[in-house]
């Protein structure tokens, strides 16, 4: 009988001690905010384009942490969806077409400076302050910072902002993926057709 009592008392004591330690740790090492939000935010492309219908990447990250779908980010595309699915342990889904399509090439905004009237509307629209200028002065895009989010195009009253693909230079060029046999035959065929057209 006493051995049972000893066991009960011992276990109870242990439970109290560990409970106290856990309780202390919970208070002492409390994590401020939701760490998963930052992890999600790191995976998002930070274009701040708002195509996901949230006013930026961080708000979307917060929404995902709260259970929003992970397939609403067209700039991130498939790779972002897969990375998010990995992180959150959910099934990857195809990109939600409602929020736009993934672009093949990264774009950047360019202001046709002769036509700019200096209205500052694009400056106010740019989510990352990548447009320089002042009222009644010509504006210009800091192309190195521009994420190609499109948000400045619509507010421009004189339509002087173009979205252009980022130019390939010797610095950012890299080799293409080698073609496999089937792709090569297709290319040869189309090339043949072109030659055929040129001859006739």
């Amino acid at each position, binding site marked *: 009988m006493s051995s049972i009592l000893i066991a009960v008392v011992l276990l109870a004591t242990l439970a109290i001690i560990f409970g106290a330690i856990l309780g202390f740790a919970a208070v002492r090492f409390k994590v401020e905010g939701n760490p998963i939000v930052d992890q999600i935010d790191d995976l998002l492309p930070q*274009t701040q384009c708002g195509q996901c219908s949230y006013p*930026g990447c961080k708000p979307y990250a917060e929404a995902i942490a709260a259970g929003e779908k992970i397939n609403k980010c067209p700039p991130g595309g498939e790779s972002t969806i897969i990375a998010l699915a990995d992180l959150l342990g959910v099934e990857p889904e195809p990109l939600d077409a409602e929020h736009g399509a993934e672009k093949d090439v990264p774009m950047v905004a360019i202001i046709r400076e002769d036509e700019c009237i200096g209205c500052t509307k694009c400056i106010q629209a740019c*989510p990352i302050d990548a447009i320089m200028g002042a009222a009644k002065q010509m504006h210009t895009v800091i192309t190195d910072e521009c994420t190609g989010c499109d948000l400045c195009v619509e507010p421009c009253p004189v339509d002087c902002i173009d979205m252009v693909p980022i130019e390939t230079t010797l610095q950012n060029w*890299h080799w293409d*993926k080698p073609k496999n046999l089937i792709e*090569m035959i297709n290319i*040869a065929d189309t090339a043949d057709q072109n030659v055929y057209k040129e001859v006739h």
Partner: protein
Amino acid sequence: MQPISLHTFEGGIHPPENKHQSTQTPIASLPIPPQLIVPVGQHIGAPAEVIIKVGDKVAKGQLIAKPKGFISAAVHAPTSGTITAIELRELPHSSRLEGLCVIIDSDGEDRWLDEIANGSHNIENYLETENTWLIQRIRDCGITGLGGAGFPTSVKMSVENRGIETLVINAAECEPYITADDSLMRERALDVIYGIQIMLKLTAAKDCLIGIEDNKPEAISALKAALKSIHAEQRIAVVTIPTKYPSGGERQLIKILTGKEVPSDGIPADIGIVCQNVGTCAAVYQAIAFGKPLVSRITTITGESINNPQNVEVLIGTPIKHLLEFAGFKQEKSLFQKLINSKVPAKPRIIMGGPMMGFTLSSDELPILKSSNCILAPSQKELPANDVASACIRCGLCTEACPVELLPQQLYWFSKAGEFDKAEQHNIADCIECGACSYVCPSQIPLVQYYRYAKGEIKEERVAQEKSNRSKIRYEARQDRLDREAAEKEAKRQARAAAAEKAQAAKKAQAAKAALAEASSSVIDSSKVDGTAVEVKQAEPVNLEDLQQKLDAAQAGLKKSMDKIAEIKADESSTQDLAVFEKAVANRRDKVKALALQLAEAKKSAPPAQQDMSADGRASLEKKIRAQQDRLAKTQERVDLAKEQGLESLPALQKGLDKQMQKLKELKDELAQFEQAAL
């Protein structure tokens, strides 16, 4: 020097050397081509900045583009002539992209710059000259590594304080077909040794090892003879190494000669070694001793489609076509077809660089660069185009061949599947792209191209990640700024609302008081109905009260208008017309002034005998003074704000302030008069 014990690296291959074809004749010099195409970005780093313009006459060796930034190299006119264009032209690069080129129509005289021609740039005691001067001259002469990568030599030589122990000279020339360094060493061994002496001085290295493959016996004996002739054997040793591809890789050669391995993410200087190509040594000597910039180089032209394979001293910028014509190019032999049975027209195949690491040129109009050590024009039989890859049979030959001890097969799968993070974990960044794996692959898989693709994708991803981190910071900074602005605006709005409320309350209190005063005066009225004189006298105070009320109302209106103006000014987006309100303010101010005047007159004419009235008047005056003081303080505040923000409305506000002060003074005078009268 102590005998060197050689080491070896894992893997490596022994492809047919095919070097003898081009070493049968001495180095030939090419006739001056009619036109030269000189790209300004031939080196690693920022392209040079063009400093001449179209139409300029240039002499051989004249600077045409100066280095831009630290890692950059100068570009000089390779021959005398006229600049006919500065334009974008396709570069001899795997990307086939365009780059800025200076086009020079040669005058055929090949006239050196006067200073170089008359020898005034020559110096003899260069080994006693300061290092900074020597490095500056190397930079001014546009010397870049001639081994292939084209890294600016002046940058590589700025390692005086890094504790360099050994200078390794790369004379291995391990790639098949290429013999440019071989012939240089045979014919200009002394130039090479002199260059090495300069580099030893610059790097402060204790000794120098020249690593040379044993398939170049003539070059070895020439170097040894040259060393002996100037008694330089003490610090410089010629080390014969076994022929194996790619022993000429920087890291591989260092491993062979010293047994040390360069850290994966480091450079040779981290382990006290600097590695230079032999061609660079000779160029450095020419630059230091004679001030001659790098305007020509030795290039091998070889392959079965060439009649006379040989080494040629070529001016930088010479179109390859010119070189091909000189060496006798048999086009029909070099034709190749991309696919069997394909109707795509066959095109001659010309490779810049060797068969292992070179790349096929898109046309023969492209120029020779500082780093072009070989032009290879193989026949279809000699170097068949192996575009059709079969499936990987997992034979593992590539793993055995890899000189960096990577797992090429794994890297292939990862690159193909786009699993770049895994490729990175398998150290794809350490791949030197030597092509040994592709060479041994029985399935003819273009392995190196997969690795280059994966490396490019990884780099792109990294750049994108960096950019996204920057964007995040910018976005958060902007968000903070917007929040702060909104908070400031809200605080201002609340302050204004509180002020308005206060004013409202004050007005109400005044109105109540006025009503009370009227009531009391009407009592007086009714008490003294008899006597017209009294009647007349009584009419005065009523008139005063009226005037007072009117004045108060006008002042309130004025204040309201002014508030409105301030509001418009604070809110930029407001579209309301400022001018209209300003006019209204002016009108109201006039009215207030007129009323105040009237009131003052009325008061003056009012008899001071009425004790209670005068007390009342005094109280109201005092109150007015207080109100005026309040208003003044507020205006002062506004003026300060305007000053702080540098608003345009500052002068107008200042004027308003002066006027209000004036008014306050008037009121005070009035009070003083009142008091005097009361006494």
